[in-house]
């Protein structure tokens, strides 16, 4: 079974430029998550999708970050314009379907490492 695919693996941009990340979840997984992991910290949720609908985007800096999952499968996360503090690893994760009774097992991609200069 293929895992969560993310691209690119690395990206270096200058501040105020735009950048986009792509994620393809495990086939059949209805729930998709984007996390930001700053060096020395644990991952922090940015946005959660259930199929093509947003479940939780309370921690997404909406003035510069946007995300979509139009067909309920793959997803893109965009930053425009980027700031120095956006340097981090952006992780995508997916799970079968969120259920309050389930153990909510999330499978993570390898991430995209973003450096903003």
């Amino acid at each position: 079974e293929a895992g969560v695919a993310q691209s690119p693996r690395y990206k270096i941009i200058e501040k105020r430029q735009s950048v986009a990340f792509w994620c393809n979840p495990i086939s059949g997984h209805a729930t998709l998550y984007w996390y930001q992991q700053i060096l020395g910290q644990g991952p922090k949720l940015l946005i959660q999708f259930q199929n093509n609908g947003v479940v939780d985007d309370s921690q997404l800096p909406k003035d510069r970050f946007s995300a979509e999952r139009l067909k309920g499968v793959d997803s893109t996360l965009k930053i425009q314009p980027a700031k120095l503090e956006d340097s981090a690893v952006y992780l995508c994760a997916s799970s079968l379907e969120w259920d309050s009774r389930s153990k909510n097992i999330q499978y993570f991609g390898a991430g995209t490492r973003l450096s903003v200069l």
Partner: protein
Amino acid sequence: TQLLEQSPQFLSIQEGENLTVYCNSSSVFSSLQWYRQEPGEGPVLLVTVVTGGEVKKLKRLTFQFGDARKDSSLHITAAQPGDTGLYLCARGSTLGRLYFGRGTQLTVWP
């Protein structure tokens, strides 16, 4: 604000030594997960603990959930270089999102 406090933040040991890392919270949680993250990779789930006082073993790794369900520990026996990585604890929420601690960065030297 970190809802989960992990300690120590860094741990560097020799192969063959034993170690314990901790995950603490002031809140009660219904379940807790432990992940390991290797350099350049995403976190990989090791175990989920649900019941207070529960102990789970995964080869040389022993996970314990506190009786009050506010803390958890991970003990590694006879550590090996392949155990090197960032160990993260995480708790779930009613909407499914995970809240992670800062992690313990473990380095095991041959």
